[in-house]
């Protein structure tokens, strides 16, 4: 019993390394076949082509479903940025997703603002603001916060928001806000169907490319270092907590964008959207697909949602159990997710943008 606080504290710097070790263990056998050709662009290309062609082959109601999946993929991307690249376990990502959804729903309901150029930035801003507030509080400060505190803090935040939304009459209480009017561009209304699908897909592609640029930049390199060994990054003189707060805020903004799209696409928002259920849902997507690769998050969202849609007719009750078993298997035996079947460790870590002059020395030190 006396293995108390001290032991927990000591464990904190070690555990990031520990996770990395666990992670390495699972990926040894993965792809990266003899040729050494890059797998990632191929995977991305296949996903892109499939996504572009989907509405042409799918029936209408499936296109609506596919649109929802794409929005959730965008949401998964936000969690992947935070967990897969910076190693911050955000168990409350739905807080930013849902609060943005509620925000734009209120804009549409009370102020009649549905213009796409107003509501999407507004949703993004709401996500960003909430993430800055929560992330700033949890991550910044004189003493670095433990990963446990951050994950439980975000979880608690999401839970508290859920309770607040349920009890607050202005936000519609248990029922949420129903029948939100459509998003508009001038006089054009985005209704469910191919036009909304391609709009969302376009946004996903843009955000994906921005994220890709971000994680491959020098900032991304610092983040990768943070994920693998936070203490070392701090010793190099990086402000580790600031980096974390920045990426947390960016993740929140992306989640907010996804949340506002989701609100308009579904036409209603309800308390679950800020709560623990959705927060853990996004964790599942990313773990399944493969954290630390952006495309893995997208694939994870598509697979989890797709399979659950497919099974929900006949196996509605069994599906969550299967999901749990699969999740456990992935965590135990494939910690890098399904994408690690085709993607090697080296390519997952990847290379980063040009070195700025002033950090040349630090990078040399970091190399071995």
């Amino acid at each position: 019993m006396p293995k108390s606080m001290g032991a927990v504290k000591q464990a904190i710097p070690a555990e990031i390394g520990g996770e990395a070790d666990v992670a390495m263990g699972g990926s040894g056998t993965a792809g990266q076949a003899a040729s050494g050709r890059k797998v990632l662009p191929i995977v991305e290309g296949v996903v892109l082509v499939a996504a572009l062609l989907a509405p042409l082959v799918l029936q209408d109601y499936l296109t609506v479903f596919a649109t929802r999946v794409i929005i959730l993929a965008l949401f998964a991307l936000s969690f992947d940025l935070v967990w897969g690249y910076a190693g911050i376990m955000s168990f409350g990502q739905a807080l930013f997703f849902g609060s943005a959804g509620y925000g734009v729903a209120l804009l549409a309901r009370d102020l009649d603002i549905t213009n796409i150029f107003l509501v999407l930035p507004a949703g993004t801003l709401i996500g960003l603001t909430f993430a800055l507030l929560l992330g700033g509080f949890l991550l910044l400060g004189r003493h670095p916060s433990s990963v446990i505190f951050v994950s439980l803090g975000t979880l608690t935040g999401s839970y508290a928001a859920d309770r607040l939304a349920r009890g607050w009459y202005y936000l519609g209480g248990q029922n949420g806000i129903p029948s939100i009017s459509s998003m508009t561009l001038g006089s054009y209304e985005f209704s469910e169907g191919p036009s909304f699908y391609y709009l969302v897909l376009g946004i996903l592609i843009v955000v994906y490319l921005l994220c890709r640029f971000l994680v491959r930049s020098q900032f991304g390199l610092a983040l990768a270092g943070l994920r693998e060994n936070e203490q070392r990054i701090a010793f190099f003189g990086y402000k580790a907590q600031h980096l974390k707060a920045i990426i947390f805020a960016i993740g929140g903004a992306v989640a907010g964008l996804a949340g506002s799209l989701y609100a308009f696409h579904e036409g209603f928002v309800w308390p679950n959207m800020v709560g623990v259920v959705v927060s853990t849902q996004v964790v599942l997507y990313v773990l399944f697909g493969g954290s630390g690769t952006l495309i893995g998050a997208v694939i994870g969202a598509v697979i989890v949602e797709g399979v659950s849609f497919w099974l929900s007719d006949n196996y509605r009750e069994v599906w969550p159990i299967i999901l749990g078993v699969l999740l456990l298997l992935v965590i135990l035996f494939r910690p890098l997710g399904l994408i690690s079947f085709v993607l090697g460790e080296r390519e997952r870590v990847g290379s980063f943008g040009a070195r700025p002059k002033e950090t040349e020395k630090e990078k040399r030190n970091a190399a071995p």
Partner: protein
Amino acid sequence: MANAFVAAFEILSFGAIIVLIVLGLGIIASMMGIFNFAQGEFVLLGAYITYLAYAKGLPIWAGMVAAPFVVGALGFVLEALIIRRFYAAPIVAMLGTYALGLIIRETVRGLIGGFYLTVPEPIGGSIDIGAMHISAWRFTIIVITLLVMVCCYLLLSRTNFGLRMRATLENPSLARASGISTPLMYGATFAFGSALAGLAGALIVPVFSLYADLGLRFLIQGFVAVMVGGVGSFIGPVAGAGVIGTLSAALPWVMAPVVADVLVFVLAIVFIKFRPQGLIAGRGV
């Protein structure tokens, strides 16, 4: 006067329930460094076993006695099969135990359907003190909670088993060198924590009735209580649970329940932020 007394009793009994639930969570978190997301589902299982005993026509008491043993045994098996792999990585442990919890919760949901199933109180009626009536079963829960707390404390601080457990957790290699089987001790600790959750579930099911999200309801409150109390000792989480339980039961009497609900969490997180070691930072039992 009578109202104040009833209020105090309500607050006390809710505090006792939270303490009961947090005991197991706290032992696992303090001793093994694992925040067990499946703990809520262990509570649920304890409640389910009690319900089963009732549904089969056995006395409810039998179900309540059986629950901790069954859940403890399950905890032992799960530790050996799965939890053991997570010791190096607390975040992975959270995710893994979350998956476990999901499996258990959805299985129970499949078994009971989406219903709220009631289990009668084994000790019905009320205790009358003058004009005031307090529920006899809630009073029993308070008494049992106190007993369990004292027993746990004595077990950990006074017995050979407790000594071995503490030795294992403080310095595993030295414990191994002294001939203690550390894997067995880890398994026993986890089983013990699970058994406490099972007991908690069995005792609270007459009060809250049985539904699949029963455990989830208390899980986050439990985590917050552990963090507020301080990870690392037996007393810390118990103290935290007392504070959180009392606050969550007391605040709705003075303000709107919604605000109170959220305020408890906000206060707790702010407190932990500025005092990460918790209420009781000391080591030991």
